[in-house]
């Protein structure tokens, strides 16, 4: 049994992993960059050390991370997501150093993390893939022949990575060669891997994924689906489960195939199969697999009542937890490889970006941070007043997740929870996402990955009368004598602007 765990990550996921590890009674340790000494997950660590060097690079340095974990006497390493989570060399280095890697084997990362290989594995397991060819195209001529065989429009995709880089939609023969050369160059630059392959392009698609767990010995279960179509430039902003527009028969088929595919390769730990579903259709196509815990895993936890980090640790200890065993086979449909689920959950990602300025990152100190609470609300976050958003890392401040007996209740709770979310003066996506979930396409569930480009979600274009009451009160505070306001109200100097305003 694992007694101690090293968290090879930072931010909200490091805190979330630390919570389960502490709850299980483990000895918890981690290492932090010079920019991250104040992060809250360190308070839940028993031991920690600093990773010296460029804060932008230290979490990617395999040898120093492995050395830190060894120095702190960890028996297992949790990679979180991002950074080294899907790096087979890291997984191998952890294992070579005599520790357990809380994720799949290095071979599984290679076989399932590469998109072309993953397509082949899906085909072997009978999982439908997007019409296309499961081979990297050697040159533009081969790409053209394949595209003509599939029929335009087609999608060029990098085999070695994601996030939209190396990706091109091509509408006709004339643009193919140029697009192929650009995609190849982009893939080479981004992933050091120029391979590009071709799939049919699905113009209006939903992005739906299946959470699976494998015990590493040929057993796998699926824990429901997540609808992740609310995206901005391939970055998910809202995820929900169940998928609002897919009938249970479809998600059961998807889930059963995903579990079968994972079982076929003796998959170890948590993973996600991503599918696209043509808008309005019931067919689905496997696109790729993520061989790690996802940002949006709390949606699945709220519906299933399971703790996915606990399951990752349980699998490393030999098999699924007794909690999962008890829930297994009790899914909402007929599938015997699923688990009991309840209600509906929606996650909103609170990101330090300014939605009014094309999602420009917003860095600096947070003076005020207030997260929501109460019935049906879960918050996983790292942001606290006094901490700063640094430019070195992704700008996710936290996740506000609402659960309800049904989708309407979950939406209403999320709306209130986002209203109760205050971050100042850093910009965040909280108010923008309230507008998204208030939109008609989101309410009806009839949305696809084009939602955010189609919606016109303007911020308020008028100054509400309420603003005047706050400003008048603020101005009054400056003129009133401090002693009539009580000791709590600090007298602060007016800025030149305001001072001039009041003259």
């Amino acid at each position: 049994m694992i007694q101690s765990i090293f968290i090879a990550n930072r931010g909200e996921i490091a805190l979330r992993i630390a919570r389960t590890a502490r709850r299980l009674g483990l000895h918890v340790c981690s290492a932090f960059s010079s920019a991250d000494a104040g992060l809250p997950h360190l308070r839940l660590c028993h031991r920690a050390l600093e990773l010296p060097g460029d804060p932008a690079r230290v979490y990617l340095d395999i040898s120093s991370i492995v050395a830190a974990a060894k120095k702190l006497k960890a028996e297992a390493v949790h990679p979180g997501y991002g950074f080294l989570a899907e790096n087979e060399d890291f997984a191998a280095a952890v294992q070579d150093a005599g520790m357990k890697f809380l994720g799949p084997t290095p071979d599984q990362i290679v076989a399932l993390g590469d998109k072309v290989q993953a397509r082949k594995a899906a085909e072997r397991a009978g999982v439908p893939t997007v019409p296309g060819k499961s081979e990297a195209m050697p040159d533009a001529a081969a790409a053209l022949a394949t595209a003509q065989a599939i029929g335009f429009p087609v999608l060029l995709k990098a085999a070695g990575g994601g996030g939209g880089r190396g990706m091109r939609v091509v509408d006709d023969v004339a643009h193919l060669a140029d697009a192929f050369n650009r995609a190849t160059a982009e893939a080479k630059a981004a992933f050091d891997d120029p391979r590009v392959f071709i799939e049919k392009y699905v113009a209006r698609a939903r992005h739906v994924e299946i959470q699976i767990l494998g015990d590493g010995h040929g057993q796998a279960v699926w824990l429901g689906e997540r609808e992740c179509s609310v995206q901005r430039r391939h970055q998910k902003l809202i995820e929900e489960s169940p998928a609002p527009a897919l009938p249970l028969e479809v998600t059961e088929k998807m889930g059963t195939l995903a579990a079968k595919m994972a079982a076929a390769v003796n998959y170890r730990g948590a993973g996600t199969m991503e599918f696209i579903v043509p808008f309005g259709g019931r067919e689905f196509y496997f696109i790729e697999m993520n061989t790690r815990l996802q940002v949006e895993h709390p949606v699945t936890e709220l519906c299933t009542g399971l703790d996915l980090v606990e399951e990752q640790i349980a699998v490393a200890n030999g098999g699924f937890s007794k909690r999962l065993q008890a829930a297994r086979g009790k899914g909402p449909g007929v599938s015997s490889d699923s688990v009991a689920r309840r209600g509906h959950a929606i996650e909103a990602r609170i990101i330090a970006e300014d939605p009014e300025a094309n999602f420009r990152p917003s860095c600096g100190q947070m003076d005020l941070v207030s997260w929501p609470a109460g019935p049906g609300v879960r918050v996983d976050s790292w942001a606290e007043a006094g901490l700063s958003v640094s430019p070195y890392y992704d700008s996710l401040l936290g996740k506000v997740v609402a659960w309800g007996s049904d989708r309407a209740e979950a939406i209403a709770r999320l709306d209130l929870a986002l209203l109760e979310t205050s971050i100042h003066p850093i910009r965040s996506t909280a108010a923008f996402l309230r507008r998204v979930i208030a939109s008609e396409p989101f309410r009806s569930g009839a949305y696809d990955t084009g939602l955010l480009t189609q919606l016109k979600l303007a911020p308020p274009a008028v100054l509400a009368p309420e603003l005047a009451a706050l400003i008048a009160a603020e101005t009054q505070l400056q003129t009133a004598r401090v002693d009539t306001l009580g000791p709590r109200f600090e007298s602060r100097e007016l800025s030149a602007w305001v001072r001039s305003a009041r003259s």
Partner: protein
Amino acid sequence: MQHEFVIRSSKPSIEPLRYTWEAGVLGMAAQSAAPVRILRREANGALVVLWGERVISGIITRSESGLVLNVDGELFELGVREAMLDEMEQGLSAAGPGGGHFDLKSPIPGLVKNVLVKAGDEVEAGQTLVVLEAMKMENEITAPHKGSVDSIAAKPGQAVAAGALLVVLKV
């Protein structure tokens, strides 16, 4: 006595908001005037007020360019000015700099505490010309534009009414 204020957004497309303020009572077009009471104020900017019976909460802090107001997660960069000063500035800004005289008037009644320039001085936009004591505070009257001082109409110790001429600028 009643004061009138104008709130302007940093986005010029957003219409300014005008309100009046008299002895703690806030008035506005199409809204009934009601007293404003502060329910809570924290050093981090959190502010909850009662305007009549309406509860209004937000976060208000200062930036270099004015106030940053956060209401329900929506951020506004705002400036607030006494209406008369706002009008002078807006008129000036429409007319553009140069070519004429500009009468700097007192936007509030008060006591002239100090006159910091003399006729002929070159002044920069934002430079304090006159200090006026009003509402128990010193209020700096600044030059809205670069120019030179044509004449001075106020002297220290003098009580002035709202609208009284203080300084004439050549701009």
